[in-house]
């Protein structure tokens, strides 16, 4: 190491910056899913450049990604059951396994050793070694007859080498604890409510909250006290008496927290709900432009940004978390699917799917400061997620 360092210094002194230029960290890197093409773009979030295109990741409908603790590898979860490991430093696909027939996201353990994938078909969770992608554990979900098992959604990592996930068909929340080794201890919490459709873990890693599609309310599990089971909160959250068509399931990943308030997308309704996290009761409702999909807080929590389902998905709204007023309505373009803030919040990246571009905006002025071409972009994931619980 010392020798390498000397070489670098020598190279710099000799006036040949190549080696020094080639050395770089990954803290400013990220990936953009190009879902229809099955490719991933590696981006530099400071230089606003597209560094590489990684091909061969299969069907990336609804794909998401997590990062290794060294921020070098992205684990990309595809719809076709593919689990792909991408080296963002070299822009290469280094490993890929077809681990199921149909999957929906995943998580990486707090120690970075295990990668878990939530599967629709066959319903359950499969866990892999993060280095080799060799199988470690298989956790089949509850049998629902006809040779099928419940679909699994809302898989998240929790402190203590745990993964938490929800069972869509059977209304359960399971906690798989890997702290004692590769054979998990699974805690099953049943009767949490009908059709949990997505879930999140609060940024402190303590609470797991699943949204319910089949009835009103949210199911909350205190991960400090899983023995207490799930508690129903926010019975006012839901589709209500006059159920409205839900054109796209909202995403609960990334609890938008500002002070004691959390901001949650209502389901089917043109509203963002404000939740008092001290009492877990509703503290307000903010009428918005359409059915919200992602409600995301700027790092620092001053504003939350909201995007919408079809047919209003060309628009973003920005809400002041103090006054609960909408301070700006933006129209970035057709198909605004996802947003990702730089870790300290100075810029926000957004996918404009049908405009085939990624926009970078200054968070303060909300003006576009760069655009990058991308083929039907969807999720944007920056390497800083490596160090955040539940992302």
């Amino acid at each position, binding site marked *: 190491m010392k020798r390498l360092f000397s070489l670098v210094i020598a190279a710099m002194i000799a006036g040949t910056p190549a080696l020094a230029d080639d050395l770089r960290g990954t803290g400013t890197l990220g990936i953009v899913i190009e*879902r*229809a*093409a099955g490719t991933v773009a590696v981006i530099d979030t400071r230089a606003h450049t597209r560094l590489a295109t990684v091909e061969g990741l299969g*069907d*990336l*409908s*609804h794909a998401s990604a997590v990062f290794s603790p060294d921020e070098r590898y992205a684990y990309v979860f595809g*719809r*076709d059951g593919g689990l792909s490991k991408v080296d963002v430093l070299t822009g290469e696909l280094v490993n890929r396994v077809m681990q199921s027939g*149909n999957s*929906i996201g995943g998580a990486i353990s707090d120690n970075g050793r295990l990668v878990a994938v939530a599967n*629709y*078909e066959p319903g359950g969770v499969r866990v892999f070694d993060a280095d080799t992608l060799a199988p470690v554990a298989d956790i089949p979900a509850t049998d629902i007859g006809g040779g099928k098992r419940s*679909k699994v*959604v809302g898989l998240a990592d929790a402190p203590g080498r745990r993964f938490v996930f929800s069972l*869509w068909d059977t209304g359960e929340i399971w906690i798989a604890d890997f702290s004692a080794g590769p054979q998990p201890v699974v805690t099953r919490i049943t009767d949490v409510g009908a*059709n949990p*459709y997505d879930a999140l873990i609060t940024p402190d890693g303590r609470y797991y909250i699943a949204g319910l*599609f089949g009835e009103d309310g949210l199911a909350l599990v205190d991960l400090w006290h899983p023995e207490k089971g799930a508690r129903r909160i926010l019975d006012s959250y839901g589709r209500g008496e006059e159920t409205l*068509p*839900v*054109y*796209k*399931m909202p995403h609960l990943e990334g609890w938008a927290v500002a002070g004691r308030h959390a901001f949650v997308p209502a389901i089917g309704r043109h509203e963002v709900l404000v939740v008092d996290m001290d009492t877990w009761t509703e503290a307000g409702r903010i009428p918005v432009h359409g059915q919200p999909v992602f409600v995301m807080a700027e790092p620092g929590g001053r504003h939350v940004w909201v995007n919408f389902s*079809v*047919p209003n998905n060309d628009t973003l709204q920005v809400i002041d978390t103090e006054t609960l007023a909408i301070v700006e309505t933006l129209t970035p373009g057709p*198909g605004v699917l996802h947003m990702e803030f730089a870790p300290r919040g100075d810029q926000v990246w957004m996918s404009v*799917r*049908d405009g085939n571009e990624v926009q970078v905006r200054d968070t303060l002025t909300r003006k576009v400061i760069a655009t990058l071409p991308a083929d*039907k972009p969807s999720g944007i994931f920056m390497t800083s997620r490596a160090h955040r619980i539940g992302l």
Partner: protein
Amino acid sequence: MVRLVAILLLTALPATAQDVAPQRAAALENMLIQDCGSCHGLRMTGGLGNPLTPDALAGWPDDSLVATILHGRPGTAMPPWEALLSPDDARWMVDRLRQGVTP
């Protein structure tokens, strides 16, 4: 199977061309892949929603599928799309699904 698809194509395409303008067809194609694909998969192999491949739909008559698109399926996550799609649009979607969708 290939022959069945070919027959369906022959019977389906003239109706499609008459009832849905080319520009609308392009918008519907994008909506089918991108928005229906959110739940059913970009390749219609299923997700939270059922698979909508030609094989998966083989036992379903056109009218049932059109009704499902327009009115949804109560008790499931499939919403009614009639606020956004006309019956001709829905019929176009069914025809298109029967041909097999690849993004």
